[in-house]
């Protein structure tokens, strides 16, 4: 019955028109194509003839007003016709497009877009989300997938630390199983799955994608903490004699091209103690339910590298002198810096030291470098007051925090181990005397 006339785009990109003059008024009869209204746009002033015969029912924009293109300019009561203001919706088989609507605007050649059905927002799946930040060519990634290797686990020996296809091959031939079986026969319950926590947007916040190195670290930490039953034991060590030993030896060392820090002494003391306490240099093989006590001593040195936490591995620490250890520590540091660290330099540790000295603090609960069973955090070495023979004196003191896996290591063993380390560090002469 009523026809709503929408102001069309009468000039190639015009968005609105000003009503200059109505040739008819509400209530007037109007014939088909009879001049109806004059509209002024940026481009032209044009006269619009009536698209219908009937009576002017409603004028929505008066003279001088601006009508946006697409708005209903005027409603005409048409005799004997069904209402038709809405666009004609046409069923659209796959390849044909809709019929034009009453205003001559062709609907886009859409396929089966029935009016009124809300669009389904497709879920965006970011394929890189679960990947660690690994550098590798597309081809290498494909090989990794084909070989069913989690490429984020493979240390890269290529340029810039890239994982190469050779790295993949070495990984499968010599390294740990590619992916830890989801359900193992171990007694250990790994509650890693829980309902994901949603953080509501409440106020001023920054959102950073959780992926890459950060995510990898998170996964490793979770796995360690939820598998090994951690306990921590802290002891204070009087390093006064060690300090003077080192200070005396620094120059000698430098003459031999050795940069002598305290770390080599720590390594030596720990290795000596591990020999006495073999259950701390061990791992649990969950696939065979065996405790593996290792007779090789590869000490992991955890430190904050340029890209985050890095654990370098000082292999066969029991076969190196203090100077040898010092050199090796330097070599490993350089290798990490230059991106030339090999797989052996980065994996295979049996026990780990975490240098926390720079951070200050007196105690920590380090997380074990899984699947090892022990990690020693070394705190700041500094002068503090101590009581010796009833007197308060200034001594060089340092705390050691050791975290151990209680499944394999009893409290007694763990404490005694650390006491042995303390003894050696407090009286370095003992290290000399126990050496073979």
């Amino acid at each position, binding site marked *: 019955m009523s026809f709503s006339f929408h102001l069309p785009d009468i000039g190639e990109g015009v968005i609105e028109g000003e009503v200059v003059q109505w040739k008819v008024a509400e209530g007037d009869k109007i014939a088909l194509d009879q001049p109806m209204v004059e509209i002024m746009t940026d481009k032209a002033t044009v006269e619009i003839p009536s698209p219908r015969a009937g009576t002017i029912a409603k004028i929505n924009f008066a003279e001088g007003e601006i009508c946006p293109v697409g708005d209903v300019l005027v409603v005409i009561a048409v005799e004997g016709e069904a209402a038709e203001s809405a666009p004609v919706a046409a069923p659209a088989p796959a390849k044909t497009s809709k019929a034009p609507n009453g205003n001559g605007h062709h609907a886009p050649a859409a396929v089966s877009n029935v009016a009124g059905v809300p669009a389904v927002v497709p879920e965006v799946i970011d394929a890189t989300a679960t990947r660690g930040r690994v550098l590798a*060519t*597309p*081809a290498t*990634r494909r090989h990794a997938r084909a070989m069913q290797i989690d490429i984020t686990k493979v240390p890269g020996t290529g340029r810039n630390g890239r994982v190469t296809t050779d790295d993949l091959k070495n990984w499968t031939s010599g390294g740990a199983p590619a992916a830890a079986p989801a359900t193992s026969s171990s007694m250990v319950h790994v509650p890693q799955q829980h309902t994901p926590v949603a953080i509501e947007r409440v106020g001023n916040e920054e959102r950073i994608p959780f992926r890459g190195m950060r995510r990898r670290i998170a996964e490793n930490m979770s796995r360690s903490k939820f598998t090994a039953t951690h306990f921590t034991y802290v002891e204070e060590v009087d390093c006064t004699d060690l300090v003077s030993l080192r200070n005396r030896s620094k120059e000698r060392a430098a003459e031999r091209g050795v940069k002598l820090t305290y770390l080599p002494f720590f390594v030596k003391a720990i290795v000596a103690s591990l020999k006495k306490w073999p259950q701390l240099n061990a791992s649990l093989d969950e696939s065979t339910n065996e405790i593996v006590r290792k007779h090789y001593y590869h000490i992991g040195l955890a430190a904050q590298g340029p890209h985050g936490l890095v654990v370098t591995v000082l292999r066969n620490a029991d076969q190196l002198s203090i100077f040898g250890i010092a050199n090796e520590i330097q070599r490993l540091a350089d290798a990490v810096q230059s991106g030339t660290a090999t797989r052996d330099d980065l994996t295979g540790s049996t026990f780990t030291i975490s240098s926390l000295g720079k951070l200050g603090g007196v105690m920590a609960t380090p997380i074990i470098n899984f699947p090892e069973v022990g990690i020693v955090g070394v705190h700041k070495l500094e002068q503090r007051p101590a009581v010796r023979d009833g007197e308060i004196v200034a001594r060089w003191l340092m705390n050691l925090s050791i975290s151990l896996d209680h499944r394999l290591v009893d409290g007694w063993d763990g404490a005694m181990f650390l006491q042995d380390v303390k003894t050696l560090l407090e009286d370095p002469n003992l290290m000399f005397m126990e050496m073979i």
Partner: protein
Amino acid sequence: MPTMNIIQAVNDALRIQMTAESKMVILGEDVGKFGGVFRATSGLHDEFGADRVIDTPLSEAGIIGTAIGMALYGVRPVPEIQFSDFIFPAFDQIVNELAKFRYRSGGQYPCPVVIRTPYGGGIRGGHYHSQSPEVMFIHTPGIKVVIPSNPYDAKGMLLSCLRQDDPVLFMEPKRIYRASRGEVPTEDYTVELGKAKVTREGEQVTLIGYGAMMPIIHEAAKKADEQGISCECIDLRTLMPFDLETMVASVTKTGRAVVVHEAPKTAGFGGELVASICERAMQHLEAPIQRVCGFDTPFPYVLEHEYMPNANRVLGAIRQTLEW
């Protein structure tokens, strides 16, 4: 089988088709009596007459514009643009008219015009006798672009172009007009359009090019071979539509590619090839695809050979893909 160079092969193709198709006509500047500045139409004026081998006024727009009219009417015109550097006065006729006639007429008015034009540098031609504008036409929907690199393909592909009904820009690598020689059958034969050719098989790196770059690519492949690097070479031959399948099959095998063209690098056809190959073969890539191209400068005169890709640059790019 006789040996021909590209000029002779083109001439032969034109002669064969002029004989077979009475509606075919050749037109352009100096193509008639003179036989063309490169002699590509030599002898045809005498054989087929001035009405069919037509010397036109000096006007590229007129040559192409009237050729379009002729084709609309049912003639098979083969206009020559003397140097592709001079195609630009006819650019509007090619882009807005020739390429769109079939489309805008709903198929009622196909426009079978085959434009022949020498392109490329290396003949000490400077800015205006050395350009490689192929990408502007590849980017114009409705026109095919064909570039032979050797006499056999030149004759066979030109005959294919002359026997199909779409507009074609047939670009002839003038630098090797005479230098490229090979066995060419005297009889009538065609080479399929839209198909690239693997001209050398290899395992480690795919080298892709067309026209006058093929000898450069082959030279680089040979040098690489001496250094123990095995290269596969592909001659694109048709640039629109291009044979992506052949390129992808090769790069899937080798994992590395170098694209070579003398046209300026930025927004050159190499970019399209790299993007298209990556879309299909990304997961096989060991290194980014390299492009060895002309500089983004007008084509120089004295520094011409430094400007154009040479075997050393291609070899450098090969090594880059291996050492990446």
